[in-house]
């Protein structure tokens, strides 16, 4: 088991190297540089001033040199300084990443709690009314422009009914609240963003658990379990469910890029000061160090997610351990 984990960890390094290489190239090859963004407002900025700015940011060097400079700093966990406000990129990311992660984690928990029973129950009652209704519901969730749903719910609950706050993650008067009040204030702010993120992710996971369960139900060992006279719930929970849940573990790792990607839109709608919003404002300003820092962090998170998924998969399924 230990050698399996070590092997997986070693595989992560070249993958991470590839990811940073590709993102670095993509970002720097697209036209428009931070220098242009910063000087386009002032027509008086001379060519000389632009050159000076370029030199300051190290953008005058050839691309591969710039990449190696970046890589050298990255090994020391230094993403450089933001070109917008000169603050350290690592500081900016550490401020925003917990907010995004908490929202994604809560959504993920809700997704797992609702989607798996939904999918499993649909599978055991294939073609029943419940199965059909949940299938339709899942497909609507799948096809929903979630930012649109967020917008409509925000207007309904935030503006018209006034039940929920419309932006941020805490009220302005939060300093005057008791810790209990603070907690509920926080929950109120998170209901919509977490709920809608979860709704978007629900569809694919419940679909996945349904088809996984359907596959398992047709297996011989399930037939055997029925044949020896076990009750249905015993067959479902003891024999089928465990095996059906195995492949679902891997979905965990795969869903991380999607969740974090979606955070851009939700954090913009709900004015949440998370990593998605930071990424968007960095993109607009062409703040290369911050963009690279965030993309690298997301890649690391995804790789860790994949690793956890693989390890737990190997833990629960001995066949994987032996094969590799």
């Amino acid at each position, binding site marked *: 088991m230990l050698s399996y984990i070590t092997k997986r960890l070693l595989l992560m390094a070249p993958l991470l190297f590839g*990811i940073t290489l590709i993102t670095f190239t993509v970002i720097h090859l697209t036209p428009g540089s931070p220098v242009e963004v910063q000087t386009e407002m002032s027509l008086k900025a001379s060519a000389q001033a632009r050159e000076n700015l370029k030199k300051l940011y190290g953008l005058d060097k050839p691309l591969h040199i710039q990449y190696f400079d970046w890589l050298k700093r990255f090994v020391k966990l230094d993403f450089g300084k933001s070109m917008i406000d000169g603050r350290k990129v690592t500081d900016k990311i550490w401020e925003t990443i917990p907010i995004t992660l908490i929202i994604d984690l809560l959504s993920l928990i809700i997704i797992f709690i609702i989607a798996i029973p939904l999918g499993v129950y649909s599978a055991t009652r294939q073609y029943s009314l419940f199965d059909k209704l949940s299938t339709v519901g899942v497909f609507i969730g799948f096809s929903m422009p979630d930012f649109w749903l967020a917008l409509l719910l925000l207007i309904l609950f935030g503006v018209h009914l006034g039940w929920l706050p419309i932006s941020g993650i805490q009220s302005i008067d939060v300093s005057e609240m008791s810790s209990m009040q603070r907690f509920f204030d926080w929950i109120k702010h998170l209901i919509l963003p977490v709920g809608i993120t979860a709704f978007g992710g629900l569809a694919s996971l419940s679909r996945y658990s349904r088809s996984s369960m359907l596959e398992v139900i047709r297996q011989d060992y399930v037939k055997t379990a029925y044949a020896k006279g076990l009750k249905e719930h015993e067959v479902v929970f003891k024999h089928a469910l465990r095996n059906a849940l195995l492949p679902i573990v891997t979905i965990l790792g795969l869903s991380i890029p999607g969740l974090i990607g979606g955070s851009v839109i939700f954090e913009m709608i709900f004015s949440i000061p998370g990593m998605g919003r930071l990424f968007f404002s960095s993109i607009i300003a062409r703040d290369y160090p911050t963009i690279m820092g965030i993309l690298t962090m997301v890649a690391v998170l995804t790789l860790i997610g994949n690793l956890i998924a693989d390890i737990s998969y190997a833990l629960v399924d001995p066949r994987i351990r032996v094969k590799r």
Partner: protein
Amino acid sequence: MRLAGIIAKRFARNKLSLIGAFTVLLLLIVALFAPFISPFSPTAIDVHNILSPPTKDHFFGTDEIGRDVFSRMIWGSRISLQVGFVAVGIAIFIGIIVGALAGYYGGWVDAILMRFVDIMLTIPTLFLILAVIAVVEPSIYVIMVVIGITSWMGISRLVRAEFLTLKERDFVLSAKSFGASDGRIIIWHVLPNALAPVFVTATFRIAGAILLESGLSFLGMGVQPPDPSWGNILTAGKENIEVAWWLSLYPGIAILIAALSYNLVGEGLRDALDPRLWEAERR
């Protein structure tokens, strides 16, 4: 032909997919005949009717400069569907090339290409797209290309898997023994047999691309006004949502219906083309 008949019959058995297929067809007709269907020009400004609620002249109301939203949405269907089709076309093209090369040649070609796929799958698509189009003026072509080149990875994995099993089959080996070139075998012998799952995924992907374009528009990074797309009509409506909610409601419903229809068709196709389910029925 007999096979196509069987597949059509199996597809038609799923009522929801059938409804989806009709809606897809309807949307295509609307897009194709937009100039004849739309009651107003999508860019005509009516200064007397600004932010008008839905009336019998303006079915979906008018926007902040008095343009007819119903007409804009009909013309918008052209752009939204075009983005979906072309983006997915690009994704299929890249996905088939990468998947076919990896699956057919195996070895180090496979290893390099599939690690590249792994890398692309680790970068959130939306982040990558935003990084590219934030500075390039996001014209409709840029959007199509960018969505296309960030969504081929799933297709390449499917094609690779099909090629891995197909290349060992007798008909491929016999073609090889006759001295057919690799290119000929890949294109004429293996590829046609590997296309079924590609069609299924492509259908789902069209829904995904339409949703992605609308999401980009929402961030101001999609198809740019005055060209109407469902996404940017919705986004324009967002500014006035408190006084004119209908401006955001109808484009959202259109996106939902279009995406839903393609997803339902995809589901129907998957079931109709899945040989494992054929086996189950024969028993």
